[in-house]
Each structure stands twice: as structure tokens, then as C-alpha cells.
């Protein structure tokens, strides 16, 4: 019995001693991060003290934890990729990475992970990087509390902030991304969670994903991005409690949905976008309890969308509530609150007794002749819209809300 106890004790002791900690500092025995990585064994921790480190590209091929103390600066000298990770269970914590190289063939990044399972990138700062965090075929990874910022002038000279390709079950939480091409970019990423991120002032999209099924986007803020948010070719997406704000421009959208199926879009706030939601070729998307306020167009739904449902949303002071490009309507719009609704409620059940037609004649006119928007709110246009309401001829007759709410739902996000 005693032998067994001793054996276990010795074994545990030896295991504990295996995980060592290496300290990298100017005055310690290990002066470079590269040599620390070389010296470290699986499970070791490397602590990097404050300082500026210019070590070119560092390749990590073993499971180690790298922790920066007081944000040591890792400078890519505008030439190198900083970390290339090809191992499982690697953690990168508390570093400041600046000035990576720029490439038009290679996706040079501050952290590039290839087939890295359970990678954790926490609490880092990225300044002036080409790509910030680049994940390829990474499973179960977490990117949390990072701040990424770049100062590109044009779209083709900059990469994405957080770029994920062919990943599964990853979590992107609480990051701030600005000044990149796309803030967060997903391609073939499944079963993942994107939560509480703030993506703003990016050159192209705040969030961009394609072929990324079963993902969930919660409580993110997408603000003032060049072209808003665009999501394409994806099934079963959940978008809940996000804010889409201030996306202005001819081809800028709060949320662009192209070939999206079975999406749940709830409790989001779309404010002051040129087009809050633009839908093309999308099916079975459910928009419930969203607020659309102060947008140019709240919803532009092309006629090739089908079986989408808009219910219990609030439409407040948008220039145009809905626009479409055809007369065929295969979608349902029901029980929303429209601030332009002028019907009555005789039986006092808080549901309007006459249907509301959200597509106005003039929104169809502007769809065809964009310059005509200059005449909006003139007496002539007012009369045209009135006439159309009495005798609908050009607007799709079937696109109507049969149970419009009499009172604003007052969702408070």
C-alpha cells in the first residue's frame, strides 16, 4: 500500500514539474521569445515581460501558453507574420502585436492558426495588422476580449480583422474590430457563437459570412461600416439582440441577406441605415420583435424571396417602410407596428381593423428612378401616394399587414 502511495506521489510530482514557466525579458536568461518557444515543452508557460520584441515570424508547434505581462509589443516590422500556430491547446494572452507585413498572395496575419484545436486568443491588442487573427480549420477555439485596429486607406490593401475559414464550434466574444476590410469574416464556419463584439468603421463589412451554417450572433454592434453587414449562402443562422447602425451609402446595408435560409432574426435594432434589411433569394427567415428606426428603407425585399415572415416588429420614422421589385408576394407580414398606419380600431383589441400596405407608390418610383427621391415629401408626391392608397394599381396588392398593431411595441434593448 505504502509503495502505491509513494508511486502516486512521485508520479504526480514529476507531472507537476513537467509544466515549467519560462520568463522572457531583456535581463533574464531567456532574451527572445523564439528561444523560449524552442526551450519550452508541451504544457509549459512562457511569460513575456514588457518590452519591444522584433523577432520576425514565430512558429508554434507545441501546446504552450504565452502570456504577456503589461502588453509587451511584438513588432512585425511591416514584413512578417508574427505567430504561426500549428498545434492544439495553444493560448496567446495579453500581447500587443503591431505592424505585420502586407501581402496580396499570402494572408499575412498577427496570429495565423492552422488546424489548431482549442486555441485561445485572449485579451490581446492588434494595431496596424494586415489580417488580425486568421483561423484555418480550427475547432473549439476561443477569441475573446481582443482589440483590433488598422488604418487602411483602401479596401484591397487590408485584410480582415478576425478571419475564420472552415472552423467548427468556435467562439468570438467581446472583441473590438475597426479599420479592417471585414471586421469578422466567416467562411465554412459551423456551430459557432459570435457574441458581444463591436465592429465599426471597417472598409467593407462589419460582419461577413458565407456557407456558415448553424451559427449564432448575439448582442453585437455593427456600426458605420463601409457596406454594413452582408451574409450569404447560409442556413439556420440565429441573429439575436444585435445593433446595426449608421451604414450609409448607395450599396450599404444594415443587413444584407443573400440566399439565406431558415434564419431567426430577433430583437435586433436597425437604426439610421440607408437600407436596414436587404433580402435577395432568401427563404423562411423569421423577423420577430426587431425595431427599425430612422432608416431610408426599413426592408427591401426582392421578389425572389419566399416564405419569410415579418411579425411583431416596430417600424418607426423610416423614410420608406418596404420596397420590392415585383408584384409576386410569397412572404408574410403580420402584426407589426407601423408608425405610418392611419387605420382605426373600432373593437378596441389594439389591432387595426384595416390592413396596412407597407409598400408606397413612391418607394416603387424611387426604386426605378433613384433621382426621384429629391421630390420626396413634396405635395405632388403626397397626392400620388394618397391616390395609390385609395386605388392601388402599381404596388403589390398582397403585400399587406392584416393585423397591424395600434400601439408601438416599445421594445427596450
Amino acid at each position, binding site marked *: 500500500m505504502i509503495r502505491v502511495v509513494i508511486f502516486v506521489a512521485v508520479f504526480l510530482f514529476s507531472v507537476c514539474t513537467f509544466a515549467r514557466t519560462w520568463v522572457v525579458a531583456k535581463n533574464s536568461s531567456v532574451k527572445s521569445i523564439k528561444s523560449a518557444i524552442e526551450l519550452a515543452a508541451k504544457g509549459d508557460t512562457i511569460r513575456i515581460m514588457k518590452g519591444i520584441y522584433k523577432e520576425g515570424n514565430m512558429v508554434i508547434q507545441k501546446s504552450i501558453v504565452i502570456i504577456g505581462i503589461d502588453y509587451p509589443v511584438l513588432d512585425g516590422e511591416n514584413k512578417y507574420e508574427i505567430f504561426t500556430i500549428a498545434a492544439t491547446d495553444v493560448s496567446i494572452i495579453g500581447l500587443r502585436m503591431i505592424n505585420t507585413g502586407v501581402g496580396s498572395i499570402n494572408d499575412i496575419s498577427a496570429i495565423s492558426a492552422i488546424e489548431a484545436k482549442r486555441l485561445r486568443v485572449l485579451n490581446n491588442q492588434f494595431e496596424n495588422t494586415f489580417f488580425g487573427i486568421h483561423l484555418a480549420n480550427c475547432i473549439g477555439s476561443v477569441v475573446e476580449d481582443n482589440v483590433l485596429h488598422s488604418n487602411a486607406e483602401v479596401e484591397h490593401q487590408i485584410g480582415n480583422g478576425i478571419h475564420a475559414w472552415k472552423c467548427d464550434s468556435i467562439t468570438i466574444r467581446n472583441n473590438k474590430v475597426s479599420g479592417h476590410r471585414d471586421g469578422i469574416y466567416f467562411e465554412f464556419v459551423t456551430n459557432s457563437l459570435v457574441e458581444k463584439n463591436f465592429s465599426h468603421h471597417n472598409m467593407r463589412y462589419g460582419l461577413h459570412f458565407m456557407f456558415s451554417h448553424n451559427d449564432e450572433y448575439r448582442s453585437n454592434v455593427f456600426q458605420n461600416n463601409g457596406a454594413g453587414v452582408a451574409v450569404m449562402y447560409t442556413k439556420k443562422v440565429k441573429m439575436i439582440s444585435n445593433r446595426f447602425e449608421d451604414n450609409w451609402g448607395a450599396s450599404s446595408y444594415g443587413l444584407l441577406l443573400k440566399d439565406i435560409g431558415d434564419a431567426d432574426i430577433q430583437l435586433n435594432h436597425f437604426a439610421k441605415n440607408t437600407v436596414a434589411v436587404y433580402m435577395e433569394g432568401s427563404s423562411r427567415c423569421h423577423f420577430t420583435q426587431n425595431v427599425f428606426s430612422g432608416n431610408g428603407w426599413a426592408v427591401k425585399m426582392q421578389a425572389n424571396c419566399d416564405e419569410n415572415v415579418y411579425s411583431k416588429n416596430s417600424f418607426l420614422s423610416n423614410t420608406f417602410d418596404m420596397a420590392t421589385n415585383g408584384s409576386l408576394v410569397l412572404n408574410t407580414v403580420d402584426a407589426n407596428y407601423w408608425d405610418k398606419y392611419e387605420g382605426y380600431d373600432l373593437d378596441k383589441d389594439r389591432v387595426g381593423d384595416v390592413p396596412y400596405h407597407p409598400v408606397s407608390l413612391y418607394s416603387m418610383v424611387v426604386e426605378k428612378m433613384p*433621382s426621384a427621391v429629391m421630390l420626396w415629401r413634396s405635395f405632388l408626391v403626397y397626392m400620388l401616394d394618397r391616390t395609390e392608397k385609395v386605388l392601388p394599381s402599381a404596388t403589390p396588392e398582397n403585400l399587406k399587414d392584416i393585423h397591424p398593431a395600434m400601439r408601438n411595441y416599445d421594445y427596450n434593448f
Partner: protein
Amino acid sequence: MMKIAKYVSYDILRNRFIALYTLFLLMVTFSMFSLDSDPGKATLSLLNIVLLVVPLVSIVFTTIHFYNSYEFIELLLAQPVSRKTIYFAEYFSISIALSTAYIIGVAIPMLFLNFSESSLYLIMAGLLLTFVFVALAFGASVATRDKAKAIGIALLFWFYFTLIYDGLILYVIYSFSDYPLDKVTLALVSLNPIDLARIIILLKLDLSALMGYTGAFYKNFFGSSLGVIYSVLFLFVWTLAPLLLAMRKFVRKDI
């Protein structure tokens, strides 16, 4: 000039019409804000009033007043006063009377009920429209000796600028929709004071939509305060041009 303006102003203020106009505007403003829970929507409804009623009242009242005080003007002309002085005194007293009515009827209640940037813009647009349409009315009044004819011309001005002109623009846009029309539309809109006033408000309320179709040119125009400055500047041109043209005619006219 001040003396003449004083007497003309007394005359106008004794007229019940200005009081009625003030009361009407007051009632409309209050009812809009009490009927609508959303102050933004009330502002919109008031916009329609400002764009329709303010020009109409300004132009018709000025024309009628001009002819009613024709004898007074004749009397003044017999005195050693220059015609210019009389003319400008008339213009300023009428436009000040009308804009006072507007300020009491719309501006002050609005500042109390809904103080916002769009309210300020609406107030400014209404005031500028008053100046423009009083000037246009002087043009109509000077053009002919016949009161009925002058009122007809004034009404035609109003009708043309509120309705006909926009219809013509829409027709042009429709006919040439294959061509880039951004700058053309802007130029055409500048030829109508009511449209200019409307654009000032549009820039506040519907900026997100206006950004929808723009190229770089419009992004600068609408995105900065350039759009508002442009509109205000052109509204001043719209005040000065008819005012000075009518003055030329008034000075040379055989009354």
C-alpha cells in the same frame, strides 16, 4: 424709411387678418403636437403646413395689402421721399409682420414642445419661404394695375411652385431615367423655392434615404452642411431676385 415702415406696420397690425393667421398657425401647431404622440411625426405634418400654407398666405396677403394701400402709396409718392424707400419700407413691414405671425404661431410653440435640430430647420425654412413669397407677391403686384389680375398671378405662382413644377421635374426624371440625372435634378430643384425649403428639412429627416442613390458628389453635398448652405443661399437669391426686379419696375412705373 423707418418712419414709413412704422406706419405700414401699424396699419397691418390693425388688420385682423394677421391675428387670424397667427391664431390659425398656433392652433395647427398645438393640435399637431397634442394629436401625435411622436413629435417627429408632428414635425412632418407641420412641414406640410409650412410648405403649403405659409407661401399661400404670404403671397395672397401681400398682393391684397399692396392694392389696399395703393392710395397711401400714392400719397407718399407725392412727398419728397424716394420710391425705393417707400418700396423697401412696404416690403420689410409686410414680411416682418408675416414672419412675426409665423414665429408666434409656429416657432415659439415648437421650441417649447419639441426642441430639436429638425424643428430649428423647419422654422428657418418657413421664415425664408415667407420672405421669398412676399417678394414674389411684389412682383405680381407691380406687374399690373388690376387687383384681380395680380391676385390671379400670385395664385398662379403658388400653384406653379407647389404642384406643377414638381410634376414637370418628375416628368423630366421619368423621361430621361436612363441618364445620370443627379446634378440635373439638383439644378432643377434649385429653380423652385418650395423645393429648396423642403430639401432643408429632407436633409434632416431623410438623410439615410438620400444617401441611397448618391455618387461621391452627392455624398459630399448631403453629408456635410453644404446642402443646407446651398439651399439657404439659393432661397436668398429667390428673395432678392424678384424683389429687385419688382423694385426696378416700381421705380420706373407710371402710377
